């Protein structure tokens, strides 16, 4: 019987000795990963793109991917690294291009929650990453620390500052309504 890991939200993710097909992992994790990456990058098309690319890499990995303990964690790490790699490449370009005044397109149908993503976008990326991974992916501080390669104390301080900043932004938005 496969080992069960219960996430903070109460949803259970099966992992352990049983190998799963890519289709099973796709069905179980694709939507979750896209939303987590949406929070991390603040850009829905980019989130979809890096998650889909992570599944392409998983498909290329073949049997080795099927044997990993936690496929969703593997895909999440791959998607984050893909995004970081792209961001590094774009960084110099962004320095010289005219600043875009428009926000990236949002997920259609999410209008009632749009202030959340708009507020997340206004945070520094380092704070947005830890908030998204902690609250949207339900990862404990230690796992966020390992995933991002930063000390636990740094994750905690970014969480604290990010929470305060996000609360201020959300209450500001509420005040405008």
């Amino acid at each position, binding site marked *: 019987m496969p080992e069960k890991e219960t996430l903070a939200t109460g949803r259970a993710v099966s992992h352990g000795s049983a190998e799963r097909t*890519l289709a099973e992992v796709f069905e179980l994790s694709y939507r979750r990963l896209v*939303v987590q990456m949406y929070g991390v990058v603040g850009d829905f098309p980019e989130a*979809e793109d890096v998650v*889909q690319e*992570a599944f392409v890499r998983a*498909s290329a990995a073949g049997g080795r991917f099927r044997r990993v303990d936690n496929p969703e964690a593997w895909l999440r790490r791959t998607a984050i690294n*893909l995004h970081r790699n792209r961001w590094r490449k774009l960084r110099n370009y962004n320095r010289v291009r005219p600043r875009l005044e428009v926000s990236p397109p949002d997920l259609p149908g999410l209008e009632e929650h749009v202030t959340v993503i708009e507020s997340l976008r206004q945070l520094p990326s380092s704070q947005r990453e830890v908030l998204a991974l902690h*609250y*949207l992916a339900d990862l404990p501080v230690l796992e966020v620390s390992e995933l991002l390669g930063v000390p636990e104390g740094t994750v905690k301080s970014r969480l604290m500052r990010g929470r305060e900043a996000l609360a201020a932004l*959300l209450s500001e938005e509420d005040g405008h309504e």
Partner: protein
Amino acid sequence: MNELELREFRTRAEELVSLPDLADLESRGRRLRRRRVALGASLAAAVLALAGGLVVTQRDDGNQTPIEPPDERPPSEVDYPGPVMEPLAPGTYVLRPSLQNGAPEVRLTVPPGWNAWQGPNRFDGDLNTTGWYAGVLVVDVTSVASKKCRYTAATGAAVDGSAADLIAAINRIPGLRVTTEAAPAELFGYPATHLHLRTAGAFCRDGNNLFDTEQNGLVIGGTDTLADTWVVDVDGEAILIDVGFTPTTPTEIRRELYEIVESIEVVDPE
């Protein structure tokens, strides 16, 4: 901050995300895999062992028809020649630690005076007396030794390709001592773990195999070799960067060794 707002955002967003065509993603994955396998088939098979450092024996991957990939690299870059013991012209090379698992390529620059082997190396004299060895390996480890002097590719303990599993496995290899605790680092823009290793020095008649690699064969521990090692997590795939040298390796050669490491870039296959 109202955490409930984030949870509600997540729940609603998950309902709205539509699934793309998995068949298309799998098709792209197969193309990526085929391209890498084809690249590897052109490497010559050779079996050779050296008596010092962490060295590699090449595995024969069979007769697969090479398909040339689109080559968008600058003309100054050439494919790393692989495990042939011959002088390596100075310049920039592209090296492939793995061809089957989606692992990326790396680009590295080599100064004059180095040899082509699975990674660039140099050595001089009798390694059992005053000789020295220096070499860089960039490999994808698939299994590690569980018994000293009695390890073959068929008897090793498999690693799953993740960085965490590889680090744990390295700590268990007989004949290899981790001399400083693993420390988090960043290498080439990716999260990495830094370890210092030292071979334990016992002599094995057929060489003390330490680990097997995806593409590059068995890696053998020398009689007394220091290794500055990084396990780099590249998009979920662990790559081992091993900077090996003997205590007698000249300072100038060590400096060149680290210059090669500093030149390494992970090449995005896309």
